[in-house]
């Protein structure tokens, strides 16, 4: 449904994306994951034909972005990072305008509008002025706008940003239900979001694709090691001896703690050694102030992926 090949885009001297390549099958939900300024929005704007790439090729819904942008625009729905709303129009007026410029014939426009109002849960605000809506409702109006022409391909740029937890769950549920009929690309920097909604993930960093896999495989690759953070009081060397006594320690990092006489130790191991570690430390008469498993943040994933690739 979407084929992206060697897309490169420069803003003046600055490189935004470089040789981005991936495919999306029909009915699939693909997550574009990356930190801010990684090139997610640039990639999406190129696919929506809002701007052309510096070089490279892409096909959306079977049409080329260079030669048939009009055909692509007829078949996509796009929700940019800031929903493109006219704050002085009412919700129905806004959707009516979007319907007109997307070329939905007047006899079908009304039912299309009531459909998306239903889908996006906008019933209670249809007669309100868009500018007076809360952030969550604005986001939903933006989503309704993207769904209006029943697009084959949906491109959503950070669709859950700025929503409260309940709304996030609703929107994710909505997106999940859209898969199958629609092909969806969504960008995010929230890892659980990808795990929950996407069938496949493309990770972008500094404009390049670092990894492409299913969320399960990616987390499995990351779960290859466990990280434990300890705060220990007493003899530093005794503590390190205990830690190194465990067979599968990959990496140990020691820092002075804020409190005098204590040390913060970060241990990377293959398996979870927390309970044994606590037992042995206490048996040696060391004071244990803190012991917790460190969760992976997005930065860790990038570090992990990039260093791993270099080693391999």
């Amino acid at each position, binding site marked *: 449904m979407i084929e992206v090949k060697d897309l490169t885009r420069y803003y003046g001297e600055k490189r935004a994306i470089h040789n981005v390549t991936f495919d999306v099958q029909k009915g699939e939900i693909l997550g574009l994951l990356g930190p801010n300024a990684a090139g997610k929005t640039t990639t999406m704007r190129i696919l929506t034909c809002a*701007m052309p790439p510096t070089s490279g090729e892409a096909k959306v819904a079977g049409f080329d972005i260079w030669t048939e942008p009009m055909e692509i625009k007829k078949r996509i729905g*796009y929700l940019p990072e800031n929903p493109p709303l006219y704050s002085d129009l009412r919700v129905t007026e806004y959707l009516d305008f979007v319907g007109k410029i997307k070329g939905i014939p007047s006899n079908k426009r009304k039912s299309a509008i009531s459909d998306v109002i239903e889908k996006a849960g906008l019933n209670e605000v249809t007669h309100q002025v868009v500018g007076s809506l809360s952030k969550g409702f604005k986001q939903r109006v933006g989503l309704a706008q993207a769904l209006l022409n029943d697009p084959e391909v949906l491109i959503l740029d950070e669709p859950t940003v700025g929503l409260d937890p309940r709304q996030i769950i609703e929107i994710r549920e909505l997106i999940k239900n859209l898969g199958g009929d629609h092909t969806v690309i969504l960008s995010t920097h929230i890892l659980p979001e990808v795990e929950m909604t996407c069938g496949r993930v493309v990770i972008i960093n500094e404009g390049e694709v670092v990894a492409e896999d299913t969320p399960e495989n990616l987390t499995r690759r990351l779960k290859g090691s466990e990280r434990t953070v300890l705060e220990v009081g007493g003899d530093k060397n005794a503590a390190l001896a205990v830690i190194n006594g465990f067979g599968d320690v990959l990496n140990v990092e020691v820092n002075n703690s804020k409190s005098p006489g204590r040390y913060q130790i970060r241990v990377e191991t293959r398996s979870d050694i927390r309970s044994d570690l606590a037992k042995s430390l206490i048996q040696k008469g060391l004071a244990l102030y803190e012991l917790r498993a460190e969760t992976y943040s997005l930065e860790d994933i990038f570090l992990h992926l990039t260093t791993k690739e270099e080693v391999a």
Partner: protein
Amino acid sequence: MSKTLAIFQKEMKHFFYSPIAYIVIAAFTIIAGIFFYLYLSSFVEAAFMDMIRSQQYRMPPQKFNVNLQLIRPYFWNTALISLFVLPLVTMRLYSEEKKSKTVELLYTSPLTVSQIVLGKFFAGVVFYIVMLVPTMFFMGLLFAYGNPELGPVLSGYLGLILLGSAFISGGLFISSLTENQIIAAIGGFGLALVLWIIGWAANYSGPGLASVLNYLSIINHFEDFAQGVIDTKHVFYYLLFSTFGIYLTMKSVESTRWRAS
């Protein structure tokens, strides 16, 4: 066509949903009204003085021509006021969408650049025509209490609309260059000033340059319309000006899409 109309309707809504439209219309009507009042009172005074004089010296009263002495200078002033009020109309036409990022919606919808630009241009022109409607009341007064010729009034309005369209195309172009409405307005005032001064400068330059400057001056082409003459030469000038402004706007929109930030 229907998509151009959709853009046009949306722009008209923006105009009339915001207070700026009403302020602009009110300001324009008041300034035009003050000029009308001044011309009218001096005209009436002159006619009255002449009547007294003719009675004193037992001479037949002079003929006073409303068209020549009132309507013509009044139209000329209205044209000038229009030049300096229209930047307030054109400033938000494009800048607003750039600022609020709604251009993204337009660029990712199946719309051509010309549909977007023409929709906005015609919205500006129609808004200007709405602005002129209250001034027709002044003309109505003249017709109610006197008997001016209708022709020059109609040609005057035609001239105003053509001049307005030409200026709106230029203002739209400036608005498409920036996402800041204030800058767009200041640019529009600058354009108005340049177009006005050019004709002025013509008076002080050599014969060769003068004819070029006179031709370029947006306001000089209006003079014939105010006198009741519709010369195709001037109609052509305004249409050419509008086309050129629209063309520049389209190019500017296309080029920002290529550069895109």
